[in-house]
C-alpha cells in the first residue's frame, strides 16, 4: 500500500496547496513536495524488484484492487515498480521540488493554484510510471495533460493560449490513436486475457495469444497496433515530424513548467514506447527497425539543425530535446541491454540536464527579461554563478563524460553500434552520433553570443546576481547530473535488470 499512500499524499498535498494563501503557497508546496521525494528514496531503499514488471519479473510494491469489468475484462487499480519505472519516479519527485523553488521568482500571480497544479501533475506523473493496468495508466496519462494545459495557458508567455491549446489537442489526438492501437491488440487477444493488466497482456502476446479479428491476421493487427501506438507516443516524445507542438509549448511555458515538461513529460512518451511498443510487440519493432532507426537519426540531426537556427534560448533547448529523444528511440529499437537500458538511463539523464538548462535560462530571464540571443551578451560578467552552472549544464547536454548525459548516450551507442537486430546498425549509430557535434555547435555558439564577450543588455535597471533560491536548484541539479555521470550504476544496474527481459523478447540470429 506504500505506493498508494505515496500517490495519494501528493494528491492531498496538491489540494492543500490549492487552498493555501498565495503568500506562502510556494514554500508550503516546496515543503510538501519534499515528502514524495523522501518517499521515493525510501521506495528506492526498499526496492526489491527482479526483472521486468511486464514480462513476468517480480514487481516491487505491487498492489492490485479490482475495479470494474468491461466487456469481459477486468480493470483494476494495479500499481507497482520495476527497474525501469523506479528511476523515473525518483526523477519526478526530485525535479518537482526543484521546479517549485525555481518558480518562486517568476510566478507572481495566483501562486496557490500554480503550485497546486504542479503537485497535481506530479501525482499523476507518479501514477503514469507506477500504473500497471492499462486503464489506470491511461487515466493518469491523460490526467497529466489537464494541469499542463492550465500551467501553460495561465502562466505562460504572450502566445500561451495558442501553445496550450495546440499542446492539448495535439497530444490528445495522439493519445486517442495510441488508445485505438492498444485496444485493437486486446481485441485480437480475445479470451486469452481476462484483464487489462499490462503484464498479463504482454505475456499473452508473447505466448502467441494474438488471434485473428475481423478477418485480419494476428500479424497484421499487431503491426497496425504497433504503428498506431508508435505514432501516438511519437507525438508525446516528440519525434520528427510530429514535434511542432513542443517548441511552442516550451517557449510559452513558464520556467518551472518547462523544466517538468522537458524533464518528465517527454519521458512519458519514451517510457510508454518502451513499455508498450518495444516490450509488448518486440517482433513488430524489430521488423520495423530500419524505418524507426531512420526516424531516430532524422530526429537527432534534424532537431539539432533546427536548434542551430533558433535565436530564442528556450527554443534552442526545446529543439535539442527533440534531438536528444532521437537517441532514446535509437536505443530502444536496437534491442540490446545497453541500447534499451541506455535509452532508459538517457530518459533520466536528459530529464535532469534539460531541466537544468531550462531552469538556468529561466534564471537569466528573471534578471534580463529576454531570452533572445541577440539581445544580450556577456552575461557571465553579471551572473557568474548562474552562467557557470549553465555552461556546465550545456556541456552536460553535449555529452561531456562523467556527466549523466554522456553515460546515457554512450550506453545507447555501445548498444546500438553492433546491434544484431538492426541492419546497418553501425551506419545508423554513427549518423546519430554526429548529433554530438551539432549540439556542441549550437550550444557553444549560443553561449558565446549571450554569456561571453563584453556585457551588453539594454535595461533600465541594474542586472545583478540571481537570488540564492534561484541558483540553489541549479546547483543541486548539476550535482545530481555529475553523480549520475560518475556512478551511473546506481540506476543503470536496476535498469539493466529490467531491460534484459525486453531484449530477450527479440530473437535474432547472431
Amino acid at each position: 500500500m506504500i505506493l498508494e499512500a505515496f500517490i495519494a499524499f501528493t494528491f492531498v498535498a496538491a489540494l492543500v496547496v490549492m487552498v493555501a494563501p498565495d503568500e506562502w503557497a510556494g514554500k508550503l508546496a516546496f515543503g510538501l513536495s519534499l515528502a514524495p521525494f523522501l518517499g521515493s528514496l525510501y521506495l528506492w531503499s526498499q526496492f526489491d524488484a527482479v526483472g521486468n514488471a511486464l514480462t513476468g519479473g517480480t514487481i516491487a510494491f505491487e498492489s492490485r484492487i479490482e475495479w470494474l469489468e468491461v466487456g469481459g475484462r477486468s480493470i483494476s487499480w494495479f500499481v507497482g515498480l520495476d527497474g525501469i519505472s523506479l528511476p523515473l519516479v525518483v526523477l519526478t519527485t526530485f525535479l518537482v521540488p526543484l521546479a517549485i523553488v525555481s518558480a518562486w521568482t517568476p510566478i507572481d500571480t495566483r501562486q496557490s493554484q500554480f503550485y497546486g497544479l504542479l503537485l497535481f501533475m506530479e501525482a499523476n506523473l507518479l501514477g503514469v510510471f507506477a500504473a500497471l493496468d492499462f486503464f489506470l495508466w491511461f487515466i493518469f496519462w491523460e490526467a497529466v495533460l489537464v494541469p499542463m494545459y492550465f500551467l501553460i495557458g495561465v502562466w505562460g508567455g504572450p502566445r500561451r493560449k495558442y501553445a496550450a491549446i495546440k499542446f492539448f489537442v495535439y497530444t490528445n489526438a495522439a493519445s486517442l490513436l495510441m488508445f485505438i492501437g492498444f485496444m485493437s491488440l486486446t481485441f485480437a487477444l480475445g479470451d486469452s486475457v481476462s484483464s487489462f493488466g499490462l503484464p498479463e497482456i504482454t505475456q499473452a502476446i508473447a505466448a502467441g495469444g494474438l488471434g485473428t479479428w475481423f478477418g485480419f491476421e494476428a500479424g497484421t493487427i499487431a503491426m497496425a497496433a504497433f504503428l498506431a501506438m508508435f505514432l501516438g507516443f511519437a507525438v508525446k516524445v516528440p519525434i520528427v515530424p510530429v514535434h511542432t507542438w513542443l517548441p511552442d509549448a516550451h517557449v510559452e511555458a513558464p520556467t518551472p513548467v518547462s523544466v517538468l515538461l522537458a524533464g518528465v513529460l517527454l519521458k512519458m512518451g519514451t517510457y510508454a514506447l518502451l513499455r508498450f511498443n518495444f516490450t509488448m510487440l518486440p517482433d513488430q519493432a524489430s521488423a520495423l527497425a530500419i524505418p524507426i532507426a531512420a526516424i531516430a537519426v532524422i530526429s537527432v540531426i534534424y532537431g539539432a539543425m533546427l536548434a542551430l537556427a533558433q535565436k530564442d534560448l528556450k527554443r534552442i533547448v526545446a529543439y535539442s530535446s527533440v534531438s536528444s529523444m532521437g537517441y532514446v528511440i535509437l536505443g530502444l529499437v536496437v534491442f540490446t541491454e545497453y541500447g534499451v537500458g541506455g535509452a532508459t538511463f538517457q530518459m533520466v539523464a536528459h530529464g535532469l540536464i534539460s531541466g537544468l538548462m531550462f531552469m538556468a535560462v529561466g534564471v537569466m530571464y528573471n534578471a534580463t527579461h529576454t531570452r533572445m540571443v541577440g539581445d544580450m551578451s556577456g552575461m557571465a560578467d553579471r551572473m557568474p554563478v548562474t552562467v557557470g552552472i549553465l555552461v556546465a549544464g550545456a556541456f552536460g547536454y553535449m555529452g561531456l563524460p562523467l556527466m549523466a548525459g554522456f553515460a546515457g548516450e554512450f550506453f545507447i551507442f555501445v548498444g546500438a553500434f553492433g546491434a544484431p537486430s538492426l541492419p546497418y546498425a553501425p551506419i545508423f549509430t554513427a549518423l546519430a552520433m554526429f548529433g554530438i557535434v551539432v549540439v556542441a555547435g549550437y550550444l557553444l555558439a549560443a553561449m558565446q553570443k549571450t554569456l561571453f564577450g563584453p556585457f551588453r543588455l539594454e535595461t533600465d535597471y541594474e542586472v545583478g546576481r540571481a537570488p540564492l533560491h534561484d541558483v540553489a536548484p541549479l546547483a543541486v541539479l548539476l550535482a545530481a547530473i555529475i553523480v549520475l555521470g560518475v556512478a551511473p550504476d546506481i540506476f543503470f544496474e536496476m535498469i539493466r535488470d529490467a531491460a534484459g527481459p525486453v531484449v530477450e523478447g527479440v530473437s535474432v540470429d547472431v
Partner: protein
Amino acid sequence: MSEHVPLWTALLPVLILGVTGLALLLVDTIRPNARSNTTLSVVSALGALASLAVTVWFVAEGTGDVSTGGAIYLFADAIKVDTLALFFTAIFASVTALVVVAAHDYFDDHDSPAAFYSLTVFAATGMALLAVANSLAVVFVALEMVSLPSYALVAYLKKNRGSVEAGLKYFLIGALSSAIFVFGISLVYAATGSLIFSDVAAEIESLEGLAGVAGIGIAMIIGGVAFKTASVPFHFWAPEAYEGAPAPVSAFLSSASKAAGFVVAFRVFTEAFPIGASLVADVNWVLAFGVLAAVTMTVGNFAAAVQENVKRMLAYSSIGHAGYALIGLGALSGSAAGDSAVMGAAMAHLLVYGFMNTGAFLFVAMAERWGVGRTFEDYAGLARRAPIACTAMAVFMFSLAGLPPFAGFFSKYVLFMGAIDNGFVWLAAVGAINSVISLYYYSRVVKAMFLDDPESSSTLDTVDSRPTALYAAVVFAAVATLLLLPGFGPVIETAEAAASALF
C-alpha cells in the same frame, strides 16, 4: 419483489412523479398569488428525489429483472417495467432534481415560476411513462406528454424574443415530427394489426405484400425518434431551442428529453422490430441508424467547433452526443452479447451525459443569471471571480470531450469498443475523429474561463451574487461526473444487464 405487493407498485417511480406534478398544481392553487418559488422548488425536488430513490431501490432489488421473474407487465401488456425502464427513470429523475433545484435561483425573480415546476415534473412523468411503454399507443401518448410541456417550457419567457422564437421552432418541427411519427405508427398498425411490441414483432416476420408499408412506417418512426433525440435530419430545432430556452430548460431537454427519445428507440427497435425480423421484412434499420449516428455526430461536432455562443455550442455538442448514443442502435450485429454490450454502453453514456450535460447547461444558467453574456469572449476570466463553478464547468467540458479522468471517458470508451466488437469499426473511427474535434471546442470554454483576460476589470463585476441552489446543482453534477469514474462499474453492469433483457 415479494408476492403480496400489488403489481402496480412497480409503477411507483412514475406515479410519484405524477403525484408531485399534481401537488405542485395544488400548491399553486392554494396560494395562487403568493410567490412560493422555494416551496415549489423543494416539493418538486423532493418528488424527483423520491422517485429516484424508489427507482434505485427497485434496481437494487431486481424489480423486473430476469433474476426475479422477468419484466412486470401491466394493463394488458401496454406497460412493461424492467431494468431498462428503471435505468432511464433514474436518469430522468436525477436530471429533473438537478434542474428544479437550479431553477429556484434562475426563476427567483420571475413572475410566475409555478408553471415551470409543474410542467417540468409532468414532462418527467411522461418520460418515465415512456420508459415503461410496451405499446406504440402508449409510446405516442407518453411522447406527447413529454413534448407538449416541453414546447411550453421553451417558450416560457414570454417576453423574451429568443425564447419565443425557440418555442415556435421547436413546436412547429415537433408537431410535424409527431405527425410523421403517428403516421408511421398507423402504417405499422396497418401492416401488422397490433400496437403491442411483441405482437408487432411476431407479425412483422410474416408480412406479405405489406412489407413496404411496414418499412415506410418504421422509417417514419425512426424520424419521430430522431426528432426526440435531436438527431439528423430532425435536429434542426435543437440549436435554436436550446439556445433560446431558459438554460435550465435547455439542460432538461438536452439531457432528459434526449434520453427519453433513446429509451423509445431502444425499446421499439429491439422489441417491436427486432433485427432478425426486420431483416426478414427487408427493413435494415441498423444501417439507417448507423448512417444517422455518423452524420449526426459529424454535423454536431463540426458545427459546434465554430460557434461563438456557448449555449449554442452546447446545443450542437448535444447533437453530437446524440450521434454517439445512436451508435447503441447503429452498431447492432444480431449477437445477443455484443448487442447488449453496445446498447448498455449507450445507456451508460446517456446516464453520464445526463450529469455532465445538465451541469454544463446549468453553468450557462448561472452565467445568464450573472448577466455576463453568452459568448466565449464574455466568459473570459470568469474563473477568477467564480473559481469553483468554473472548475466544475471545466470538469463538464473535459468529461464531455471524453478525457480519461472523468466519467465521460469510460462511457465513450465502452461505447466505441462495443461498436468495434460488433464489427462497426467505421462508426468507432468516425466517433474518435469527432472526439478530437470536440476537444477543441470544449477546451475553448476552459480557455476562455481560465486563460483569457476579461475585457475590462469591471466586466465581471456582476458576478457577485451567489445563487446557492444553482451552485449546489452545478457542483453536485460535477461531483457526480467525477464519482462516476470509480463508480462506473455498477452503472455499466446494470446497463448491460438491462440491455441484455432486450435481446
